[in-house]
């Protein structure tokens, strides 16, 4: 810049440019003032955070995925006998033939251990 500062020609040019900027009409100055006020109002508002949108979307997606998958991750509930079959089961367990089976369990185990030979 120093070489231009010392140049009277550039100094005259600069003076002309300054005069033009200084002598702007009132309507133009008013528009500039309005533009500045609009910009300053925008400055007073909180700055938008561009990273917030992806983070929000990722959180929402994770939540939706968890809701969709959670029931599948739970263990299957054990089947419970229906109330209608309980008396039948009880009578079957209490039958005398079944008791004989339980008494001869040792015999059936020996029989099972024997090799199959004719």
């Amino acid at each position, binding site marked *: 810049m120093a070489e231009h500062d010392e140049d009277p020609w550039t100094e005259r040019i*600069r003076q002309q440019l300054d005069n*033009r900027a200084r002598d702007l009409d009132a309507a133009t100055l008013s528009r500039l003032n309005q533009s500045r006020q609009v910009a*300053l109002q925008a400055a007073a508002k909180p700055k938008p955070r561009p990273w917030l949108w992806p983070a929000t979307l990722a959180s929402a997606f994770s939540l939706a995925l968890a809701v969709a998958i959670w029931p599948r991750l739970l263990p299957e509930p054990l089947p419970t006998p229906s109330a209608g079959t309980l008396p039948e089961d009880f009578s079957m367990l209490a039958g005398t033939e079944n008791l004989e089976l339980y008494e001869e369990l040792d015999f059936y185990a020996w029989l099972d251990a024997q090799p199959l030979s004719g």
Partner: protein
Amino acid sequence: MTPTLAMHWMDSDRPATPRAGTPAARNHDALDAFLRGIERRALRIAELGVGHREEALDIVQDCMLTFVRNYRDKPAADWPPLFHRVLESRVLDFHRRHQVRSRWFGWIERLGGRDDDEDSLANIADARAPQPCQHVSDLETADALDIALRALPHRQRQAFLLRIWEGFDVADTARAMACSEGSVKTHLSRAMTALRARLEHHHG
């Protein structure tokens, strides 16, 4: 309207300014001072770039908004080159849009399909616009300077205005123009040569 509602309406209509003494208020005041100091020269630079006052005003408004939204938290020393970077970008956008519009709609006008509602006064040539055969000595010195600056290629004009008028050093000019420091020197040298040749009758 109840008094409470009226007060609320008045509050919502009031410009949002931060509380005095806070860092936000200091930033607001610094921004205000910066924009106030640069706005006239920015308008003139935009006007020389696009050739129309109204277009230049729109460009400066857009530039101020973009600058404040994106760079208000940067150090104040960086504001001038950043502001001019945005301004330069907006002026180039204007020329790109103008070029595309001419490419797509120029043939309609050539075929005579011009809108009948168009203001015929708008078609009258601007006496201050640079004409190939117009001699600068016919006009006042300031007008001659405007014409000579507008006749420069865009990059040369930017280099000249930022270095000579804004007082930027080569590095800041290169930042504002998004080019190398060597390019700035070349553009400036060519601009000075062209301007000296055109304005020799007016500025000696």
